[in-house]
């Protein structure tokens, strides 16, 4: 099974994307999409530096869905936060600044996903990652409580990402 279909989740996502783009569920497109996705999965196996497949794809898919739900809530909340800051500046003290978060993620895919999350959330921005020290630098628009921000990044995202990618 693993030799035949190395990345079932990637295969499923690509097939779904094909069907979405063509807006159809016809058998012809289903087969064509599945075939293209299958070829891409084998190409990706050649590109993947770790040269291995990951275990328990369906459990990791569950973790990914939970992470997505968390992120959606956070995005909505921080949109409201940033809107408040923009529309109503100067009502309360606010400091923007850089924050160093010690982070225990080494997988490039996990870090890329974290970059997508941080960028998609207004109010937090990715400012750099030091692979030697394992320190992630963020710029935060409303940096009141540094410890609370570190807590959010580590507990909410890092734990889930490790569940998914490691």
């Amino acid at each position, binding site marked *: 099974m693993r030799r035949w279909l190395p990345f079932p989740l990637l295969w499923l996502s690509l097939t779904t994307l094909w069907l979405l783009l063509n807006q159809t569920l016809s058998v012809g497109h289903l087969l064509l999409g599945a075939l293209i996705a299958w070829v891409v999965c084998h190409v990706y196996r050649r590109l993947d530096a770790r040269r291995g497949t990951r275990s328990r794809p369906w459990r990791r898919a569950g973790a990914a869905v939970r992470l997505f739900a968390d992120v959606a809530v956070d995005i*909505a909340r921080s949109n409201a936060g*940033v*809107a408040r800051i*923009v529309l109503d500046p100067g009502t309360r003290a606010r400091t*923007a600044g*850089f924050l160093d978060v010690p982070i225990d993620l080494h997988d490039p895919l996990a870090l890329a996903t974290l970059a997508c999350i941080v*960028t*998609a959330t207004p109010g*937090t921005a*990715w400012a750099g990652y030091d692979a030697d020290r394992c320190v992630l630098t963020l710029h935060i628009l409303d940096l009141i409580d540094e410890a609370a921000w570190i807590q959010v990044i580590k507990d909410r995202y890092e734990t889930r990402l490790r569940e998914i990618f490691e």
Partner: protein
Amino acid sequence: MTQATEPSLAVAVVTAVLVLAGATLTLIGAVGLLRLKTFYERVHAPTMGSTLGSGCVLIASIVLFSALESRPVLHEIAIGVFLTFTTPVTFMLLMRAALQRDRFGEGARGREPPDGKDH
């Protein structure tokens, strides 16, 4: 793909609310881009348009065209996916460039740029 029929009132209301919400969020983001003082603060504001703002408009599009064509129209999801995957690239590039400039370049007078005009 005929769109001869009118959408029902409920669909029209939901679509209008979502489109207006998305447009308002994007507008607030654009105002923020004008109002905030430094480069690093400014990069946060337009994110509102590229996340929840575009999300609302995409959901409105899904609702309206699914109702008009009486079948699920879902390819807007792909737009959301590609937006989410591609924005970090430009974004990190800008951020790294600004940091580089402030550390080593002309504006190396502390971490904030000297004034807001040059970006």
